[in-house]
């Protein structure tokens, strides 16, 4: 027998609501720190002249750089996670990262000033080995200075 849904009208109403835009400055130091953390040895992520010799405007952002914006967008006057993730009370208190999906539509390089907006794309519920859970998928779209969409991030949070 199916259990009663924990998805409330308030949660449904939150789906698709666009966040306020955030500005993300893609800079060389953050790219170098990110690339080092992942263990990259390719000098395109560390040496600007070398990156230019390979056809990039400056150091390119490695895959995953966008979508892990905790560092670039951190401000002490904002919550550590963007408010769009849970603008409602959840019956579950524990959180796991369920999945990540990042698409780059063109190279993103240091010097890019990106504007991102986020929304909840989907809320579903499921029962698994850890019990009943809510799966909340957020989607963030990144535009460059010219207004072109250059990347899209989708992340799924599991609450259980």
């Amino acid at each position: 027998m199916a259990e009663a849904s924990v998805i409330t009208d308030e949660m449904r109403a939150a789906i698709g609501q666009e966040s306020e835009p955030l500005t993300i400055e893609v800079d060389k130091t953050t790219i170098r720190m990110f690339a080092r953390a992942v263990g990259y040895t390719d000098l395109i992520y560390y040496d600007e002249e070398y990156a230019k010799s390979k056809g990039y405007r400056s150091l390119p952002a490695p895959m995953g750089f966008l979508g892990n914006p905790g560092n670039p967008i951190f401000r002490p006057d904002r919550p550590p996670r963007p408010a769009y993730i849970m603008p409602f009370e959840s019956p579950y208190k524990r959180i796991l990262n369920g999945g990540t999906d990042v698409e780059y539509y063109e190279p993103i390089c240091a010097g890019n000033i990106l504007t991102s907006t986020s929304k909840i794309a989907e809320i579903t519920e499921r029962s698994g080995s850890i019990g009943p859970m809510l799966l909340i998928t957020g989607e963030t779209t990144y535009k460059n200075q010219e207004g072109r969409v250059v990347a899209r991030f989708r992340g799924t949070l599991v609450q259980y």
Partner: protein
Amino acid sequence: MSDQVYFEDVQEGQEIPPLTEKCTSQRLVMWAAGSGDFYQIHYDKDFAQNTGLPDRITHGALKHALLGRLLHEWVGDQGRVKRVACQYRGMDMVNEDVICHGRITKKSQQGGENIVELEIWTETPQGQKTTPGTGVVSLPSRGQ
């Protein structure tokens, strides 16, 4: 970087060279700083055990980034990693190898680009697939 791989030289079903990264506590601390994810289950053993985990666990997003590095190192200077998607189905514990794999599922030409789609995943040293996903890259052509 390894030798350049070309679109004509790869086939559906082919596996790409795996990438192994030992996710030591130092690596997890570097990732915390590099990504901005400071959740303590990834570097504070007492905190992790108080939440019921046996020990610290590797960040899911680090595994996503390692799958991105797997593809980047395979496509070479002239290739591009366009999409990496994965699901975190199982935990990887601190100080264990995360072994990244990829297998080509489709080749196509779209908008003048040579597109290769792959099934990608991470395995534990015991062979458990903890992070299945898909990747999309573009490769240069020998004819260009």
